[in-house]
């Protein structure tokens, strides 16, 4: 008997079915659960109130990131510097208290391994191919880069996973997003994912799990794949997968929490069976050609508002759909932009290089190569926030910190920072920020903040020129 061809998603799903209910809901086992300070307090409180324990603390890992300030954490004498905001301090203390009470492994704010939860998971080898991985954060989709079925959950689901190590789920539809061809000069993984979201729209992936395929995706490093999968949720898809391959295995081998020895061999053998079968059928397919993708950025207040850097601010009247016309006008009013303006004529006040989308070592290298020997433009504030303590340490070993510092960038401690303006790193009202993060929503980076999403190299280019800039013009002799 020949088995029906299956997609990567179906294979992972089928390997995690505990049972199927009569109403079509599945009880799905969760292999890995990442926890942070913001979406977990009410879940632990729920367990406490019901007298319930954490079923598998060994499959759980907690790390603070969202609310942590990115200013220095220890003083000259090596003592921890207290957090000024009492609510933030209390939330971080609550996480410490909860992990101790429930026996959950925990990376402390002062540990070298601390960082953004979606940077830490892959880095520690906690994220593995073929696993189900959840976290109370929508950018959990990032871990799909390693071939994990990874998605964000709400706090009630965090509590459900803590107590039962399972979730009650309905099966998703599958969408193949295929990108083929070589990326042009100055075009990065961020430009690829912006192009994809520009194509499918902010709700295009709702109800789907995306699988990214094609040689463009295959040729990306794990860091680049993480950037792509990370923004699946901005296209509406709760999860985005990339089939594990030799690039994935080389990345994972020897990481502290990855399997070793005989188990590593066994694991790789199973992981090699996971890629979608040749005849597997997806519910939808979207194709892009890498040669059509330019360095890109957003102009509006939805991640689908994507334009090449060589483009212009669109005219709301150019949209056929009347509701889109209204939305575009509102976006432009909020963004303080006039239709027809060349994107490169738009000045910036702030630059943010960081977030779970773009704060890994390759991102910092790309930004530093543009910043090297140049200086942040007058009146611009530019922040570099490494994704983890390990990224920071590696960047410092390579001298990237001194490149940034001498170019006038601020070199900060790891965390989510200005991506969501929960800690003190905010964009002031009315100011414009070139940001490597993932959301340009109204008020996302602070009340009244205006966000343009772009790649790390493009962000560095904006910092040194003081306006949105085609990074290719600054890269002439540097690649």
């Amino acid at each position: 008997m020949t088995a029906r061809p299956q997609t990567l998603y179906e294979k992972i799903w089928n390997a995690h079915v505990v049972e199927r209910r009569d109403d079509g809901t599945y009880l799905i086992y969760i292999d890995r659960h990442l926890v942070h300070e913001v979406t977990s307090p009410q879940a632990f409180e729920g367990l406490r109130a019901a007298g319930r324990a954490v079923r598998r603390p060994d499959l759980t890992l907690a790390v603070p990131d969202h609310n942590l300030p990115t200013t220095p954490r220890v003083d000259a004498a090596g003592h921890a510097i207290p957090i000024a905001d009492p609510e933030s301090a209390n939330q971080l203390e609550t996480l410490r208290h909860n992990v101790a009470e429930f026996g959950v492994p925990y990376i402390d704010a002062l540990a070298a391994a601390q960082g953004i939860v979606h940077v830490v998971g892959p880095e520690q080898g906690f994220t593995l191919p073929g696993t189900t991985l959840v976290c109370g954060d929508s950018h959990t989709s990032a871990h799909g880069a390693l071939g994990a079925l990874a998605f964000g959950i709400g706090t009630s689901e965090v509590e459900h996973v803590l107590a039962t190590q399972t979730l009650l789920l309905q099966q998703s539809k599958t969408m193949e997003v295929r990108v083929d061809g070589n990326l042009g000069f100055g075009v990065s993984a961020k430009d690829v994912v912006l192009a994809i979201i520009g194509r499918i729209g902010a709700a295009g992936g709702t109800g789907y799990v995306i699988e990214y395929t094609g040689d463009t995706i295959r040729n990306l490093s794990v860091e680049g794949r993480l950037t792509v999968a990370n923004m699946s949720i901005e296209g509406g898809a709760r999860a985005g997968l990339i089939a594990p391959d030799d690039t994935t295995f080389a990345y994972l081998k020897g990481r502290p929490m990855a399997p070793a020895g005989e188990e590593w061999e066994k694991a790789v053998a199973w992981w090699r069976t996971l890629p979608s079968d040749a005849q597997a059928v997806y519910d939808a397919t979207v194709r892009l050609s890498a040669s059509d993708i330019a360095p890109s950025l957003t102009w509006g207040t939805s991640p689908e508002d994507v334009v090449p850097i060589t483009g212009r601010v669109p005219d709301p009247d150019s949209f056929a759909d009347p509701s889109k016309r209204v939305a575009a006008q509102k976006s432009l009013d909020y963004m303080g932009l006039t239709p027809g303006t060349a994107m490169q004529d738009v000045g910036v006040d702030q630059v943010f290089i960081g977030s779970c989308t773009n704060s890994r070592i390759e991102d910092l290298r790309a930004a530093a190569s543009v910043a090297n020997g140049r200086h942040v433009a007058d009146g611009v504030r530019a922040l570099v926030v490494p994704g983890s303590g390990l990224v920071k340490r590696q960047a410092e070993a390579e001298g990237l910190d001194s490149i940034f510092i001498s170019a006038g960038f601020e070199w900060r401690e790891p965390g989510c920072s200005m991506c969501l303006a929960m800690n003190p790193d905010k964009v002031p009202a009315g100011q414009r920020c070139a940001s490597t993060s993932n959301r340009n929503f109204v008020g996302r980076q602070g009340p009244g903040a205006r966000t343009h999403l772009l790649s790390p190299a493009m962000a560095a280019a904006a910092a040194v020129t003081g306006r949105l800039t085609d990074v290719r013009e600054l890269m002439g002799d540097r690649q």
Partner: protein
Amino acid sequence: MTPVRKVEGRAYPWGAKNIDTDVIIPAHWLKTISRAGLGKGAFETVRANPDNIFDDPRYAGAPILIAGDNFGCGSSREHAAWALMDMGIQAIIAPSYSDIFSGNAVKNGIVPVVLPQDAIDRLVEVAKTDEVTVDLETMTVTTPFQDRFEFSIDPFRRQCLMEGLDEVGLTLARDTAISKYESAVSSERPWLSRERDYAGLAVESAGRT
């Protein structure tokens, strides 16, 4: 969770599309360690405008919100559902929702009704002057003008809402099945368990980038 069978009353006739969870509840409200009291932060940036729908006395305390496509997109924060609940919302009517948000809504007893855009347009008109009724039993939305829109909802979600089920309790009752799955996996994919490495709380392992 309180069971919900029917929600009737005034409805905010909003209809706006792509309302993200940063709009429903901005991040600075997320420093709380409690579920309570988030209504005062709900739609903060919308309410900064003096003519906003949420401070219009005609709709004060309305239990229903009518919105556009892709409601609740963005962040997974359940604080969005808690904030809506705290401001008295018990049902939302929209053409589509983000997957994470609709799940969070159900888990807090908020009914996420899906209706096509033309029904939304009609309900927005009606809601400016009259009440709207969402009935989970008959799976209909009705108005005093004989409008009757049928909607479908996942049967398990409907049951959870109507019976106010404790999902964690429900799943804990399946403990035997979960344990059976775990023991099968421990031989098929032994590398998944981290019990052996689980040496306590503080994770000191560092490694490479």
